[in-house]
């Protein structure tokens, strides 16, 4: 009997082996999938989008003097030509996956995924266009079918973003969208559709407010979007789950291990330690430790390290464990604090001074609470006469001064500074600047200039983007 059993086993195995053959198409890669699992795509894009804010922020933070290089004449500090291939590559990787995710979602009639794809596409596109202006979009993402996608105009991209937001909100408002996503795969809002709608309106408010230099600016439209956007810090679009740690924390760790990075700019420190505005901002101790001398000192952009030995702690940097750079700190994408300042700006421009003043104070409070500043310290700061100026003395300059701190490390600060022509108190050109004026746009990456060069527009880093004219 045993002998027969063995034979039967052998036959079963052989049948199984030969049975496999018809499933083996020699041209199909057994180690990869040709059908994207939609949860997997959602997980990837909700992870990458906040990272894209970080990648670009790691460039723009030097332009806006949040950060400064410890080396003399840092590339970004002094507006030298840079090659932002990492930021661009990651944004286009995200946009490609969003393109596929939307396509797959519509094929499978998963409206929630399609709606989120629209909103995140608008977010990534506007993020990129604020840095680069014209971008490949309408002819992009089709691989070999178009190896040289043309660039859409900046204004076209802007209009596309608003259209995508509208379409995304409409999709997410369908009854089928509710609970229509895998919450575990949505690292930003955990599958909460109403939270995504708020983020969509928050982005819409940001974009509508961005054209403040143009005659088409409409304060009441901005405020209408604000009304549907965030109302508390718990609404913030941010990334909490990391493969290893928050990427700013990684840079802070590198710095602690003497791969010098993420040093605070003299301008940012002076704007918060009382030097420029005469009031000490309690957020500064949440961001960095004081120097050996017990004071807060920043590095002048372009001038580099100011001490004798670079192991002396005579200038401040993002420290491991501080709010923006601790292992588990959230990586911010779009926040309630920012939207409060957007509200304040639009209300003030629209003549609603009380609303503007309330939003201005609410924005400061929201950001301070986010950073865990003690309630008494918040009140002390907000009640300081330099801050609590009263609704009739509120100015755009004051709003932007506070927004500058509240959007620390975020690329939106650069957009804001360009809108206000860098007219911030005490803000000046970096030492050893390679341009004669402030930087107005980023360089296209070498991956575009060398591989799609015919379509890359000519530009100077001093060119104003369309909304900056």
């Amino acid at each position: 009997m045993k002998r027969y059993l063995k034979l039967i086993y052998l036959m079963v195995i052989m049948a199984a082996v030969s049975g496999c053959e018809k499933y083996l198409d020699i041209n199909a890669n057994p180690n990869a999938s040709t059908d994207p699992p939609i949860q997997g795509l959602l997980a990837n894009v909700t992870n990458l989008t906040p990272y894209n804010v970080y990648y670009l922020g790691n460039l723009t933070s030097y332009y806006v003097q949040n950060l400064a290089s410890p080396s003399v004449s840092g590339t970004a500090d002094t507006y030298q030509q840079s090659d932002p291939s990492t930021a661009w590559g990651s944004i286009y990787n995200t946009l490609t996956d969003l393109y596929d995710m939307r396509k797959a979602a519509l094929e499978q009639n998963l409206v929630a995924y399609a709606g989120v794809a629209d909103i995140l596409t608008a977010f990534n596109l506007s993020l990129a266009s604020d840095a680069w202006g014209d971008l490949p979009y309408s002819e992009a993402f089709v691989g070999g079918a178009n190896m040289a996608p043309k660039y859409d105009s900046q204004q076209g991209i802007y209009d596309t973003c608003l259209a995508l937001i509208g379409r995304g909100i409409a999709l997410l408002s369908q009854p089928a969208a509710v609970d229509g996503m895998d919450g575990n795969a949505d690292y930003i809002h955990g599958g909460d559709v109403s939270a995504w709608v708020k983020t969509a309106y928050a982005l819409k408010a940001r974009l509508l407010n961005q054209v403040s230099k143009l005659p088409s600016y409409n304060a009441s439209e901005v405020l209408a979007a604000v009304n549907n956007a965030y109302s508390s810090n718990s609404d913030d679009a941010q990334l909490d789950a990391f493969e290893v740690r928050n990427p700013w924390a990684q840079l802070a760790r590198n710095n602690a291990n003497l791969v010098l990075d993420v040093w605070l700019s003299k301008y940012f420190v002076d704007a918060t330690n009382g030097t420029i505005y005469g009031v000490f901002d309690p957020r500064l101790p949440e961001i960095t430790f004081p120097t050996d001398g017990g004071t807060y000192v920043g590095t002048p952009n372009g001038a580099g390290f100011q001490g004798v030995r670079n192991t002396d702690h005579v200038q401040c940097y993002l420290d491991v464990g501080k709010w923006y750079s601790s292992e588990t700190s959230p990586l911010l994408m779009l926040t309630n604090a920012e939207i409060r300042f957007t509200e304040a700006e639009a209300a003030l421009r629209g003549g609603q001074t009380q609303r503007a003043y309330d939003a201005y104070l609410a924005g400061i409070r929201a950001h301070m609470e986010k950073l865990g500043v003690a309630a008494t310290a918040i009140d002390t700061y907000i009640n300081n006469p330099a801050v609590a100026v009263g609704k009739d003395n509120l100015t755009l300059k004051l709003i932007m001064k506070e927004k500058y701190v509240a959007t620390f490390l975020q690329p939106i600060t650069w957009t804001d500074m360009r809108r206000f022509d860098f007219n911030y108190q005490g803000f000046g050109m970096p030492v050893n600047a390679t341009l004669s004026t402030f930087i107005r746009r980023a360089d296209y990456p070498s991956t575009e200039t060398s591989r799609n060069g015919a379509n890359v527009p000519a530009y100077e880093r001093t060119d104003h983007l369309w909304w900056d004219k």
Partner: protein
Amino acid sequence: MNEGKLRLSLAQIGKDANPYSTSVVYTPTGAPINNVVRYTRDNAAGDPSLKPELTTAFEVGTDLSFFNNRLGLNFTWYKSNSKDLIMDVSTAPGTGQTSITLNAGEIQNKGVELTVSGKPIQSGDFTWESQINFSANRNKVVSVYKSLDYITGGSSFGYAGSGPSFLYRPGYSVGDIYGTSWKRYYGSKTPEPFRIDKSLPIIIGANGFPVRETAQKILGNSMPDWIGSWSNTLKYKNVSLSFMFDTQQGLEKWNQLDNFMAAFGIAKYTEDRDQMVVFPGVLEDGTPNTKSVFKGQGMGPDGVDYKDGYYRAYYRGVSENFVQDASWIRLRTIALSYSIPASLLKKTFMNNATISFTGNNLWLSTKYNGFDPEASDAMTGDLTSSSQAGFTYPPLRNYLFSINITF
């Protein structure tokens, strides 16, 4: 003449792609977060309509030998066309991929190969054998994929936008190095779109410094005009001396190390940073430049702040400065050996014993200012590896002393 042969051959060779080069796939990325595996469209894509690459080669040759085989001559002329070349074409991220496997185009190679070998001296105990090899190849990109103007075969890093590209552009050659250059004054002449006329004067800006041309143009070609070698063996009784010279002539390479050295003021030529100079060249309107400027950093002796200085602000961003003549000639190997006469070995266990002394890479002559124009740090297989040099250890110079015994 002892022998004469005429060779004619026509051959066609097909080449297949790597497996799975025909599909667009999605791959897991990173470690799972919240137990969810993240998927992304793979950066490398295939082409569903990929065809095999086909090379058609035609060659004519002759083998001749004269004077009782003391002089041999071997000559070949060939022409080969590779159609539907299978390449991983680097694409702009805007396409959704960074590389697509394609039938990317057609390349033509033509050239000659010549070998002359002989025994110029053969008298009694003394013989001299010698061989000369010579080959020259010319290539041309005939066409590239569909609508593309060119295909990027590789690129390299350089400071301040000086990183060169290595492109396949129809009508031009494989190995062309494209990069930034000093702007030339063309006056009424029309510039060629992808070449620079180095005989023309450089344009100097109003600030007294030369002006950079940012559009990438051809600065050189990394494929040699010709390759040669000369090997010799001289024998006198039991002593034998052999040596071989190698050369490659008429080629340029991207000297990445020099770009770094210039950027950080380490290169010897940057020592003139304490000088005031008038850059030779003309202003935009064609009149000669007369403005004297400081080459160093910071405050110049004329009281003007020169900030980052000439080498960082200008020189390092111009690829032309680092695309250098990489022609070379070297003594590849030399070996002296002595065979112990059989009569001395008769009573020992040995049948044969040879003592030899060999030196490799003993002498190099080149205008290239890096370590060695042959040493590349790039991965082999794409155009980058053959188009740049530096940033790695040069080939070793070694000496070998050896004893060979057979028993």
